């Protein structure tokens, strides 16, 4: 693939065009105009929806007010970043955010891959389709609903789980004042909701594996497990790494919807459940300080940027073909 690209048919073309006013760059533009035109929508999309809004980060350094707007408001130095560290919770919430994301990435990747592999190994087409749809469904349920469902499972009086415990002669567990239970509950719901959607990527990757390899493996006498571990998993490794790198890019961003709807304002659980996004939401919802909100966002993005660059470096050191950039 790479060889194809670098072996330039252009080299021969280049000789025919005399180097005029346009120069090398201009000539290449003209030569590749169709390709460039095709990529244009994507470039415009990225500029309009990713780069243009990014200019809003100046708000992180401004004392914003409605009258002067984003550009006219007075500068504020790094004052907007201070509240986050002053709150005394910064360490806790950064730790929680990262640990939850690490757990989501690890557990998520494993379960999604496993589901994808199981689904491909299932022979019955109907069973496969039905189970895939069933697993996909929770993805469409909003976190608000999931929050209500969780309350109906874990609450003291109506809670399904507590009713079950009482019926079996055990004592009730007060989940909503037991912070240690929540990392498990949160990871469980994240997996339950995301596994169907996440496995689609891996399914596609597995479908793309050259069937002749499987035939060769079968001829060599592979059993199911050997086929999975020596053929399927190594073949989808590039996909796994790309998805991994993409989730690492969000490692400092808490899923606000999820944490807010499952935990809400229950201070008893915050040591184990508070993430950067929920903390800044609580701090700023009443004062509506746009500058500080922007500052927290920027802080998270910069950390994420650093992490993703580092992770990419590591991957590159391991195998350059797997790296994102």
């Amino acid at each position, binding site marked *: 693939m790479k060889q194809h690209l670098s072996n330039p048919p252009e080299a021969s073309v280049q000789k025919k065009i005399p180097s005029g006013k346009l120069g090398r760059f201009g000539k290449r533009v003209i030569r590749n105009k169709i390709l460039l035109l095709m990529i244009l929508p994507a470039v415009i999309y990225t500029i309009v929806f990713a780069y243009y809004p990014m200019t809003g980060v100046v708000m992180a350094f401004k004392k914003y007010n409605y009258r*002067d707007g984003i550009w006219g408001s007075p500068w504020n130095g790094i004052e907007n970043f201070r509240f986050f560290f*002053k*709150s*005394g919770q910064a360490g806790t919430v950064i730790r929680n955010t990262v640990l939850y994301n690490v757990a989501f990435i690890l557990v998520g990747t494993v379960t999604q891959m496993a589901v994808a592999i199981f689904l491909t190994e299932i022979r019955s087409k109907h069973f496969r389709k039905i189970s895939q749809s069933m697993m996909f469904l929770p993805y469409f349920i909003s976190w608000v609903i999931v929050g209500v469902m969780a309350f109906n499972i874990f609450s*003291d009086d109506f809670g399904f789980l507590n009713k079950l415990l009482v019926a079996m002669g055990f004592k009730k567990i007060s989940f909503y*004042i037991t912070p240690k239970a929540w990392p498990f509950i949160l990871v469980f719901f994240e997996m339950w909701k995301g596994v169907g959607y996440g496995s689609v990527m891996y399914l596609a990757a597995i479908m793309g594996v050259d069937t002749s390899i499987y035939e060769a493996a079968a001829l060599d006498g592979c059993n199911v497990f050997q086929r999975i571990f020596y053929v399927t998993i190594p073949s989808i490794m590039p996909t796994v790494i790309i998805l991994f790198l993409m989730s690492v890019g969000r490692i400092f961003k808490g899923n606000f919807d999820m944490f807010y709807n499952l935990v809400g*304002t229950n201070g008893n659980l915050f040591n184990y459940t508070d993430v950067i996004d929920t903390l800044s939401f609580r701090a700023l919802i009443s004062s509506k300080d746009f500058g*500080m909100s922007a500052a927290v966002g920027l802080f998270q993005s910069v950390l994420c940027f650093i992490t993703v660059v580092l992770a990419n470096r590591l991957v590159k050191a391991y195998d350059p073909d797997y790296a994102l950039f």
Partner: protein
Amino acid sequence: MKTNATKWLAVILCICLVMGLAAGCNREGSGGNNSSNNGTPSGGGSNSGSGSGNGSGNEELDYVELKMWLVGDKPEGFDDVYAEVNKILKEKVNATVKVDWLSWADEGTNYPLLFSGGDDFDMIFTASSWGHFEQTVGLGGFLALEPEFIQKYAPDVWAVEPEAAWTQATIDGNIYMLPANFIEVTPDVVAIRGDLMKKYGFDDIASYDQLLDFYKACADDGIYGNSVGSSSVIWLWAESNGLRYVSGAPDAGVLIQYYANDPNNLELDYLLDDPKFTQFCYDMKELADAGCWPSDVLSTTQDRQDGLLSGRGASMVWNHMTCQIYANQANAEHPDWDINIYNIMPEQKYAATKYINGGIGINAASKNPERAMMVYNLFATDQDIQDLTQLGIKGVNWEETDDGRYQIIEGKAYNTSNNWGWRNLDIMRTEYQANPSAVDTKVNELAQYFLDNVKPDHPLDNFAFDTTSVSTQFAAVEAAMGTYFDPLINGLVDDVDTTLAQFRSALESAGIQDLLTELQKQVDEFVAK
């Protein structure tokens, strides 16, 4: 294989391109529509502006459509009512209002976005503290209203509104709100199951301590005293101690109270330094351990009335009007419960709400502020518009009785919402009840009692804390609050002293002292004036 892939890529990119173009066209199209819509009123506005500039008695007003945002959920029948309102407005000031609603669910985030996003509107509901008034003024969202401007374009409002209302609406020397001419005395009361009171031997519940005893008696009997916890009980505690919290500092404001019933006491009460608050935390821990509320109250989605209505709880705390609604509802479903309303602080004096507890702000970017004022003038002082926005359409929703009161037509009540920005006590009608229940009678008595015992004015009643110079510390304090405050006041902590110490040190590092110093400074300046 390869050419196939290239073909597919080309097809996909083409689809992207076409969709992108279509989306672009759509957006441009709607944008164009918007701007052309806006074009007309703005043109009209500038004309009318110059017209009224020439002479205030000018009859030739160009037609404008004003846009007003209200906070809340749109009630049923709203469009019919406002069609009537607009008929009156069109006839009297050649304008109509188009009302949009910010629903309760997301008004907290969407309210500021209206200003920062440049939404083209003229008027918006606002209220001190919970209605974003101070924050929006701080961010420059409202038009400053000169007294001459009000006198010229809303003369009737100027005439009926008491001096205190304008004082309250003033921040940094400028008036930023048209406050409703409306106050009410709504201390928190408790709706309690009469059958349980009899069962546990309570004749009456007339003090905070008796209420706590009742909660414990309920817990012993296996029913929750208050099924939503004591986040509402802290109000009862504060009110029965004559405390009220300093306005302008939402959420964290609860930490800093003042002795509202004693005009000579200008001290600020920082709760963590107040032994009464420590005692409150101990009491709540005792109640929580006894089982007076479930341990999941901090995550509950239940409203305060739900426990009472479902029979899980024996009481609810709210103001007398809200308690009245739910007590009547529960009694209708369970006549044996015998719920009634109890005032647990009969010795206290009661605070009246401020005038700025509801009002209308004019958008600083409004193109027709003069016309908005004229429309507000009618909303607040025209009897027909008051009736329409309070009660609905006469003959459809309500009937006028001979003495000028109103009677709801059975089953046809117009459930008004957010007419709070222009309620006018002078012309609002009172209800005629054909068959008052025991609850209704008690509530009417209480309402009169509260009105007769309004507390004296305290210098800090009209004070509002401006947090802009300590916004960093303020945000940090708010962030620290969530972890400790709610668990503490609901008694859901392992050890009160430890948690209080942790809370205190978290607040200290967040900068509560800077906040207190700044607040004291502002209070001193305010009192000196």
